[in-house]
C-alpha cells in the first residue's frame, strides 16, 4: 500500500464557526436597544434599563437551569408552577414563626427554599430518567401537581408574608443595591458565572453536553446518563429556588397563579440565546441575553404608545420570530 499524505487543504472548519452562533443573540439585543431608543428616548435611561434587567432576573435565573436541562436533552415545563409551590411553602414557613429572630428566620427560609427547589428538581429528574417518561409529559404532569398543591396550600387565595418586620428586612434582597447595582442583577451575573464555570470547565458540564449530544456514546464512555440528567433537573430546581428567593421580597406574596407561563418564557430565553432544543449545545451567556431580550421586548411595548394594548401579544410574538430570523441569517454567513 502506498503511503501518501492526507490532503488537508480543506481542513474542517473549527470552533470558529460557532462564534457567529454565539454572537447572534447579542446582535439581536443590540438591534432591540436601538429600536427601543426610537420608540421612547426614556428607554435608554439608566433607571429604565436597570428596572428592566432587574426584573428579568427571575426568568434569567430559571433559564440558566433550563439551559442545563435542555442541553442534557431534557425539558422542564414545571418550573413556573414550581416557583409558585416553593414560594408558597417558603412564605408559609416565614409565617409559621418557627424561628424567632427575623434574621435567622430569613436565612432559614432561604435554605428551605433551596432544599425544596432541589427536591422538586430531583422528583422531576427521577420521573423522567428512572421512570423513563418523555420529559415533556412528565414535567407537564408535575406542573399540574405543583400548581394544584399551591392552590390547595393557598386555599384558592394568596399567601402573604405576615410579619411586617420580616418583610422590611427581606425587601432589600430585591430592592436593594450594592454600589448602585441592584442585588438581583448581581445575583443574575453571579449565578450565570457559576453556571458557565460548571458547564464549560468541569467534568460534569462536559458530561451534560455529551449526554445531550448522543446518549449512547455517553453510556459507552462510562457516563451515567440517568445521573447526569437527574442532576441537571436538580440544578434547574436550585435555580428556581434562587429565583424564588429574590421573587418573594418583591411582592411579598404569592398565589396559585404565580409564575404561570414562566416555563415557556424560560425555554424561549434559552432558545433565543442559541441553545438547541435537541440538546448537546449549551450557551449560558446566550441564555442571559435571551432573557434580557424577552423582557426588553415587553418593556418597549409598554413604553411606546403606538401599539394598541390588544395587539401587544401579537407584536411580541412577531418580534421574537424576527429576532430568530436575524439570528439565522447571521449564522448562515
Amino acid at each position: 500500500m502506498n503511503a501518501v499524505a492526507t490532503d488537508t487543504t480543506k481542513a474542517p472548519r473549527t470552533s470558529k464557526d460557532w462564534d457567529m452562533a454565539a454572537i447572534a443573540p447579542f446582535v439581536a439585543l443590540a438591534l432591540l436597544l436601538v429600536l427601543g431608543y426610537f420608540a421612547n428616548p426614556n428607554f435608554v435611561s439608566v433607571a429604565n434599563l436597570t428596572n428592566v434587567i432587574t426584573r428579568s432576573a427571575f426568568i434569567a435565573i430559571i433559564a440558566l437551569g433550563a439551559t442545563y436541562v435542555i442541553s442534557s436533552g431534557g425539558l422542564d415545563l414545571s418550573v413556573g408552577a414550581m416557583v409558585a409551590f416553593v414560594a408558597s411553602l417558603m412564605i408559609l414557613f416565614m409565617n409559621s414563626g418557627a424561628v424567632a429572630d427575623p434574621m435567622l428566620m430569613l436565612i432559614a427560609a432561604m435554605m428551605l427554599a433551596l432544599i425544596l427547589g432541589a427536591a422538586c428538581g430531583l422528583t422531576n429528574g427521577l420521573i423522567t430518567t428512572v421512570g423513563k417518561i418523555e420529559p415533556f409529559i412528565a414535567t407537564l404532569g408535575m406542573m399540574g401537581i405543583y400548581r394544584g398543591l399551591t392552590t390547595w396550600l393557598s386555599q384558592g387565595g394568596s399567601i402573604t408574608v405576615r410579619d411586617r418586620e420580616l418583610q422590611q428586612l427581606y425587601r432589600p434582597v430585591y430592592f436593594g443595591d450594592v454600589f448602585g447595582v441592584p442585588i438581583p442583577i448581581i445575583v443574575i451575573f453571579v449565578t450565570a458565572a457559576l453556571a458557565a464555570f460548571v458547564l464549560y470547565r468541569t467534568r460534569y458540564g462536559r458530561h451534560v453536553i455529551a449526554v445531550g449530544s448522543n446518549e449512547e456514546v455517553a453510556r459507552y464512555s462510562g457516563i451515567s446518563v440517568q445521573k447526569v440528567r437527574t442532576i441537571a433537573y436538580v440544578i434547574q430546581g436550585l435555580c428556581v429556588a434562587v429565583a424564588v428567593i429574590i421573587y418573594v421580597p418583591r411582592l411579598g406574596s404569592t398565589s396559585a397563579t404565580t409564575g404561570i407561563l414562566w416555563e415557556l418564557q424560560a425555554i424561549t430565553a434559552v432558545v433565543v440565546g442559541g441553545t438547541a432544543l435537541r440538546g448537546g449545545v449549551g450557551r449560558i451567556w446566550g441564555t442571559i441575553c435571551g432573557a434580557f431580550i424577552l423582557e426588553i421586548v415587553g418593556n418597549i411595548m409598554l413604553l411606546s404608545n403606538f401599539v394598541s394594548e390588544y395587539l401587544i401579544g401579537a407584536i411580541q410574538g412577531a418580534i421574537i420570530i424576527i429576532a430568530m430570523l436575524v439570528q439565522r441569517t447571521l449564522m448562515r454567513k
Partner: protein
Amino acid sequence: WAQEAKKVTIGVSIPAADHGWTAGVVFHAERVAKLLMAEHKGLNVIVKTSADPASQANAVQDLAVQGIDALVILPTDPDQLVSAIQQVKDDGKFVALVDRAPSVNDNTIRDLYVAGNNPALGEVAGQYIAKTTPEAEVVIIRGLPIPIDQQRQDGFDKGIEGSKVKILDRQYGNWSRDDAFRVMQDYLTKYPKIDVVWCQDDDMAVGVMEAISQANRTDIKYVVGGAGSKDMIKKVMDGDKMMPVDVLYPPAMVATAMQLTAGGFYDQVPVSGNYILDATLVTKDNAKDFYFPDSPF
C-alpha cells in the same frame, strides 16, 4: 384658566382583557381616557394592560419611568402588587386603587380607593337565592384560584347563612365559557336534582346555560351570574326565567376612579378616601338602567 393647560400625566394600569369583565374594564378605561384628554388640554392619560401580577408590577415601573403624576391601578392580585404600588406612592405620586384591596389598605399605600365589592357580589347572590328558594340545592362554579374568587365565595357563604340552602359542589370554571360548560355537564351527570346554579360571572353563565339546555333538564330553576354583561342584563330585562337576576359588578368603576383623579388635579377638589360601589341586584325592573349595548361586555 391657566390651570387648564397644566401638564399632568395619569398612568392607568389594568389587567389585560383576558375575559369579558376585564375586557369591559379596558373598554371603559380607554373610553374615559379619551374623554378626559379632550376635556383637559394638558392632560395625558396612558393606559397599560398586563396579564399577571408580575408583569403588572413591571408595567407600574414602566409607567413611573415615563414620569407620571398619578397612578390609577386595578391590580390583578392586590397583595402581590403592594410593593410596586408602594414605590409609586413613596415617590409622592397620587395613587388611586380600584376594585381590589390588599390586606393592608390604608393611606400609606393609596390616596383614593374606588371599589367594587367582591364579598358583596357573593353575598347579594347568596341572599337572593336564600330568599327566593330557601331550600335550594345549589352547585357553584368558581373562577380561578385567586383572592377575589375566594372573597366572592366567602360572601356567598355569608349570604346563605341561616337558610336551608345546600351547596352540593363547587368547582373551578376558570372564568371560561368552555370550562363552565364542561363542569356543568358533569354536575348534571353527578346530581340528579339541582335547583340553582351560581356561577359568579356572566361569561361562565353562557356555558352553563348551553349545558343545561342540551341536557333537557327541567329541575334547574335558575342561574345566577354576576358582573352585568350586556347579554345577561338583556336576558334579565327580557324576563328570561332561567336568568331572573344578575349581580352588578360594573367594569366602569375604573372610569370613575380616573375621573375622580383627574378632577383632583384640575378641579381643585380634594380627592381621597373610599368610594365603594354597590353590588346592585339587577332585576327585570331596573335592568334597563344597566344595559349598555355597545360595550364589548
